[in-house]
């Protein structure tokens, strides 16, 4: 069984030059209005760089960066496949760096599945921590108009008609409406929340919990005696994956889980952790990644650059 915690996690200088291992043949980043996304794109050394523009950010065409890939497809599989076919093609033998900071979650998650299908076994993911979210615990990342809650393409399991011991593990982020919607969608499941601790910045954990509390009625209280809250570092996908494994093992040992739903609503590194865990351990089981798909997302929620983190992600063969 893979030990996620030995996977490489490092930091890149915000101002100085990046080391040789932080150079790629292909570099992909999702365009937003945030300084932390644009600066990293400019700085990243790569033979070929690609901006992608998601329709949910609502940018006008004239705001697109030059040669950016854009599509109005809101289906994550269709979008990613279309980007890949038109801009990347065969990736065999080429190194890949992806800045996950500006990615909208379902696209990022499907991209991992797509990479695995394309035979990518390793790539670097970058994530830039902000100094602060602009409106602190009042920050709205999405417009909170949830269009639907559904499984993410490529992460749909084979489920079990017996629903007597279903679980939903929520990576609890700032958007309490999203937590509430996903909890409502799997109303019958017992809910576990994973909070980002340590958080990206010291005060963010408190803000996170304050927001998540507002979804309390939807998340509900359960008649199980295990704790329903767990913690994983907000900036560490690998510990997040390990934490998920630990939670699931513990629950499964107590009573076999009938169906498992994972919903990563928190930081992008945690989202990465959820997706890696699924691909590595939960494919073809009664497990799905589910997500509340929103009408729109705010393209600018933070200010400043605190740190640039680099993760070397390993993917299983399909």
């Amino acid at each position: 069984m893979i030990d996620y915690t030995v996977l490489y996690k490092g930091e890149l200088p915000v101002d100085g030059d990046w080391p040789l291992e932080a150079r790629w043949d292909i570099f992909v980043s999702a365009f937003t209005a945030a300084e932390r996304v644009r600066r990293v794109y400019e700085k990243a050394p790569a033979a070929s760089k690609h901006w992608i523009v998601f329709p949910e950010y609502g940018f006008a065409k004239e705001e697109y960066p030059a040669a950016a890939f854009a599509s109005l497809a809101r289906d994550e599989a269709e979008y990613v496949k279309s980007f890949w076919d038109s801009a990347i093609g065969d990736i065999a033998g080429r190194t890949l760096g992806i800045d996950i900071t500006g990615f909208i979650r379902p696209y990022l998650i499907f991209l991992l599945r797509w990479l695995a299908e394309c035979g990518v076994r390793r790539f670097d993911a970058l994530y830039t921590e902000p100094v602060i979210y602009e409106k602190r615990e009042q920050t709205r990342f999405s417009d909170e108009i949830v269009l639907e809650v559904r499984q993410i393409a490529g992460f749909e399991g084979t489920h079990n008609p017996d629903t007597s011991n279903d679980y939903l593990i929520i990576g609890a982020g700032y958007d309490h409406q999203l937590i509430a919607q996903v909890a409502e969608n799997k109303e019958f499941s017992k809910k576990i929340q994973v909070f980002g601790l340590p958080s990206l910045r010291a005060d963010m954990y408190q803000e996170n919990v304050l927001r998540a509390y507002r979804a309390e009625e939807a998340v509900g209280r359960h008649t199980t005696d295990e704790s329903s809250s767990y913690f994983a570092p907000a900036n560490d996908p690998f510990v997040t994956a390990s934490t998920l494994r630990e939670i699931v093992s513990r629950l499964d040992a107590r009573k076999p889980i009938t169906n498992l739903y994972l919903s990563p609503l928190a930081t992008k590194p945690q989202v990465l952790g959820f997706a890696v865990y699924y691909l590595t351990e939960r494919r073809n089981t009664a497990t799905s990644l589910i997500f509340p798909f929103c009408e729109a997302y705010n393209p600018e929620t933070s200010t400043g650059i605190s740190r640039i983190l680099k993760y070397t992600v390993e993917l299983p063969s399909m």
Partner: protein
Amino acid sequence: MKDTTLNPFNITKAVDFSDQEINDYWVDISSGDGFTGLAKPTSPMPMLILGGKGSGKTHLMRYFSYPLQCIRHTQDVLAGIKHDKYIGVYLRCSSLNSLRFREKGQREEMWEEVFAYYMELWLSQLMLSTVLSAVGGTSELADREADVVAELAALIHLRQRPSPTSLSGLNALLRELQQELDGAVNNSAITRTLPVHIAITRGDLVFGIPRAIEASLRSLRGCLFLYLIDEFENLSEVQQKYVNTLLRDRKSPCSFKIGARMYGIRTLSTYSTDEENKEGSEFEVLRLDAILRENKKYEEFAKRLIAKRLAEFNRAQSVPTTLDANAKSLGECFEEPPKSDFSASETAYVIDKYHGRERPYFKNLRQRLERGLKWNVTPGLRQPADIEKVLQLLQCPKFPLLEKANIFFFYQDWRSKHNLLEASRKIGDECDQYVHGTSKGSRHKEGLLHWKADLLAQLYRDTDQPQRYVGLSTFVEISSGLPRILLIVLKHIFAWATFNGEKPFQGSPISMRSQQTGVSEASEWFYRDARMIGREGQLVMDGINRLGTLFRGIRFSDKPAECSCSSFSIDVSRSSETTRRVLDLAEKWSLLIDVGGQPDRNTERIDRKYQLNRMLAPRWDLSIYRRGALALKPEELNAVFDPDHVEEFDKLSEERVARMSAPFFGHVPRALGDMSGDLGLYAEQDHD
């Protein structure tokens, strides 16, 4: 350990209950044959069980499911089932993850076929598991199993697969087919192909398993095999069409109960040449919250529900008493304002708070009179001294409620252009007579009968007090037939009472302060939670916000046209298409309650009548009781619910409220026309 340790009302959703708890917390309604009489689990006629969120659909459907039958018949489950005359197979549609059966480069007709096949496999597995649990290991099954399996296996196109030899083997085969199908469906997102071999004809196993079992096993002979399909709103229109077809083509010994939210039925159409199922012919409907709301025994049921929670909560330490005895005494657990003549006790604080200074409602009246005098719209008043005289005549210092009534009557007379000095003198005299009991049929008696709640609400607002939503009857009323609402209100009240150092339900009644804060918090939750999924959710919420604002403006105007204004009537047919759609959604999401029809005052027409969900009343300080209904014009309704007309809302609502506001009552002098903006909803309120 149960999670009700700290608060007996913590669990408010049936989904959070274990099967045992569903049974333990079951409370029946004492009219007719109770919920069994309403849901008719032995009836072969399929039934749609419709209700708002929290109406108890899931609790009811789970109560009829096999695991609960086992709990009820611990001694001999099979005998129990035979006695019940049904065996319930429960399915949550959300577990199907039905949204994946679409797009991915495939035609819609393909998905229709695939979903129907998937549902067939799913329902069949649930039915087989239930049957196996009930009769597995019995000699009866051992004798007949081979024949039953052979009969059922013949319905499956096995191709190269070996034929199953037992029911559990058959179930494993169905699981295998389902997993194969899952793989194809899930991979189609990547491959854009959908290689599926459909091995079972629609309905063959769904009806075939019960038929074979019932015919072969004496222990289940005569039983109805009841599919309890919950959360139907999770299926798309084409998916519902498949289930509708099952209902239409139903074969004995099967039947269906379909649980859905009010908005959850997307179609009644079937695959039988697209014919629609008809109520009374192919199915019957149980509208759960409407039935509870209108049921005279609802209050009794609600109290028993609370008493049951408390009994379970205090199981260890309480002296055993009957549920009914506990239920009857529950009202005493909530503090309410003491009953007194003219609400003197409730309003005594006004006397202390404004000792030595003018009471705010007189201050407001003074401002209006001064303004009216300036514009010559105060009949009978000529100089400032007349204003002082009017104010003096309307005073009744010991009884602030009567002062509010005096002012209200004065505004009525003012609007009717009576001589204001004479009017105030008459009102003052009548008030004196009323206080001294010498005027039995007075305007005050009649007026307070209708307007007391509104006048008290205005008084609280004038004097910066929170509105009072207190007392158990109020909470039952607020819940509007949705038991979960009642539990949520009590959950918040209990939490606040505990926080405030009280011991709820143990001696002293829960303070009004805790009740008010709890209700207010529960109302805010309801408002947040009511937000619908999808783009139209925001439209609905915006409309509801405007409606609440309009009602509040009217309730707190000088001379409200309707008492306890929280309902409106409308000729829906004359409103815009968008308005009709949003109105329909608001009703289906239980934000508005359809309270029947109302004849229009000027025509023979019967208009629809809607009440704002009572749970939202505290948000806008509205009454939870329904008396008058505001007759809205189509353009006003459009301004509330149609985004293409919302810019007219402020103007229309200001005009409405201006007609109820002194000094002009909607007749603004031409010279003042340009300044009319401050006559509207937020007409000046002078607060301390």
